[in-house]
């Protein structure tokens, strides 16, 4: 089973936070962005992108957890809320800021890739993708660009 990340190009993301809305309703049955497992960052005139767990291969959150509460379940990392002591080391260690402490009970919350946000994305561009496939997409995009330049210069 290959690892997938939740991905959207910042140029496709509208910053509408419908992913936060879906996540909050599915996980909590209410609306509160502080309880969502996916959170959109909007900066400046054009940049929007959700922050969400990338399910790292060597996960700093799981590695640093003193009570081993972050467990691998198939392709995702899941917080065992029975074990979690709410110390917040995982929050501190995550290089992306993609794991948080629940404002009410203080234990860690993170994305488990349930996929409801994907269904609720207005442009429909939020998706699960294998990072290597993403690299392949970029390779092709870059190659096309080079080809255009070469054509323009009449090299080919």
């Amino acid at each position: 089973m290959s690892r997938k990340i939740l991905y959207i190009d910042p140029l496709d993301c509208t910053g509408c936070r419908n992913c936060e809305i879906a996540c909050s309703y599915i996980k909590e049955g209410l609306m509160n962005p502080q309880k969502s497992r996916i959170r959109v960052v909007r900066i400046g005139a054009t940049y929007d992108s959700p922050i969400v767990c990338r399910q790292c291969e060597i996960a700093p959150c799981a590695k640093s957890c003193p009570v081993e509460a972050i467990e691998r379940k198939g392709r995702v990392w899941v917080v065992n809320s029975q074990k979690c002591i709410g110390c917040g080391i995982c929050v501190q260690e995550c290089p992306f800021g993609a794991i948080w402490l629940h404002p009410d009970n203080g234990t860690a919350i993170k994305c488990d890739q349930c996929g409801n946000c994907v269904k609720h994305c207005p442009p429909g561009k939020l998706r699960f993708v294998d990072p290597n496939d993403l690299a392949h997409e970029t390779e092709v995009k870059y190659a096309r660009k080079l080809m255009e330049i070469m054509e323009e210069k009449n090299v080919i």
Partner: protein
Amino acid sequence: MSFKYRAYAGKIIRVNLSHGTITKQPLDAKMAENFLGGSGFITKILWDEVGPQTDPLGPENRLIFAIGPLCGTGWPVSCRFEVGAKSPLTGIYGDSSCCGHWGPELKFAGYDAVVFEGKASKPVYLWVNDDTIKIMDAGALWGKTTGETEEIIRKDLGDHRIQVASCGPAGENLVRYASVISLRRAAARCGLGAVMGSKNLKAVAVRGTKDVKTEYPKEFYDFMNEIIEVYKKDFYILDRIKFGTPILVELMNEIARWPVKNFQTGVFPYAKEIGGERIRREYRIKDRGGFGCWATCEKPVRVKEPPFSGIYAKQPEYETLSALGARLWIRNLDALIYANELCDELGLDTISTGGTISWAMECYENGILTKKDTDGIELSWGNHEALLELIPKIAKREGFGAILAEGSFRAAQMMGRGSEKYLMTVKGMEIAAQDGRAQKSMGLAHAVASRGADHLKAFPLLDELGREEPIKARFGEKYLPEMAQPLNPKYKAFEVKDGEELCALCDSLSLCKSSGICLPLYTGQIYFEDLAKIMKLATGMKVTGEDMRRTGERIVNLQRAFNIREGLTRKDDRLPERFTKTPAPEGVAKGHVVELDKMLNEYYRLRGWDTETGLIPRKKLEELGIGYVADELEKMGKIPKVN
């Protein structure tokens, strides 16, 4: 104690800027039942607290920021907040709404409204951080543009998630059509930015972390997804999402409904050059939306050619492309994008800015204004440089800009010389980009709207593109084909009345008309019954579609009563003679005028108002549960003799 109804925060913030006091007031459940929120709250508070003696720019005027029950629930496109006050532009009821993320943030902080009164002794801004509310020094922010203000506040307070609504230099300088801006979106009409300026209030910053709960979260979420499926399937909706409002540019030009050269005609030969398709093809970077938005009207764009190259801006809306473009005969899209950006940064309503300048251009064309009056600016049609020069002059009230800053209606009064002849205003407000001669329902809507010449209070769309399905779904076959014909005045009073009630609910629930109402309008979805269902699922309030309509009617009538108390009667529900007497010169509407009197009579009759005076009989007010309004109006002799 939590509030009786879910989805509401249950609290209102009261700020007296003269005394520097802040009070948290519990929301009255009756207020929620009778006026819902948003614009409904604004209407009620203004009726209760702002009388005919109140100077719109004086300390006793109220400035209200209000949100509705759906704001912050995540309902599709329910991110809007309303700003209201007695308007410095029209002197009557004033409100304006803005999308983005500010409204939901206020709900997350735990409030349904913020009401300001008084005047601060020095520039301040309000900082609402969940339960902690402070009046902060805004000395360093005074004079800054709206974008700068937002950035500085976020940086100073150290949280990029803070949402800010602010006025620009135009508001500080009391330009009568100054806007309130948040996240590059605008609550532009009615000059509410000037009311902020008059109170020395630069901004309201909000950050909230609380829950917003609905009564039936699962059913609410499911219904939300059901409506989203409608959005995803309708061709008109998808087109509108793809291009944003500028897609209307070519369409409205086709039906000759455009305000070209201050409404001299309805057709602009260069429409394609400033239309939605070109912007998407040559300028667009991406789409952006407010909280829970599916329509994404904000489209960041980039100008590539000199002299404006390198500017990251946003696509001007249809109204702006009309008011600053076709209305002034300007076809330079780069300049229009820059002008739109200038207006938003300085905090000006683009519609009234374009409306006022187009009036001045027509005066210039007819020799009433000369270069002596205009500080040497060549005010000829199509001169985009004049536009770019005038916008900052208006915002700063410099030279000729100081006259234009008063709005065209007051400027004409100050200037005289027959310039009144070219006024395209209703109740002192510049008419938005709909020529009523080409769409009769819009003519009537402009004449009767509570905030002055305005299309959004009734938003009569059923006949705009002549789609018959929604008319059939809502009212049955008997209104067809006449209601679907934009040039036919038949049934338009009925359409406008119905639309006004629906729009009053929209503005009160925090729904966006562009997608919450107007897009599903095309398919007949989202009507009173649907709104009642949404209300029940969200708040637990047991209401029927008929109850919702009555609430809409109550809000419309109370806004009318506010204006009646200010001295308005039927004689103020008028359109400029260009619409009622001069036939449209070209296009599909050629030869048409607005048959206003005929439609007005029918409209008053449907509303149950006195056809002679336009006043509201006691019986009507009592029927709507606002008999206290009749008592007050009666004392002033403003209840019609014959009931």
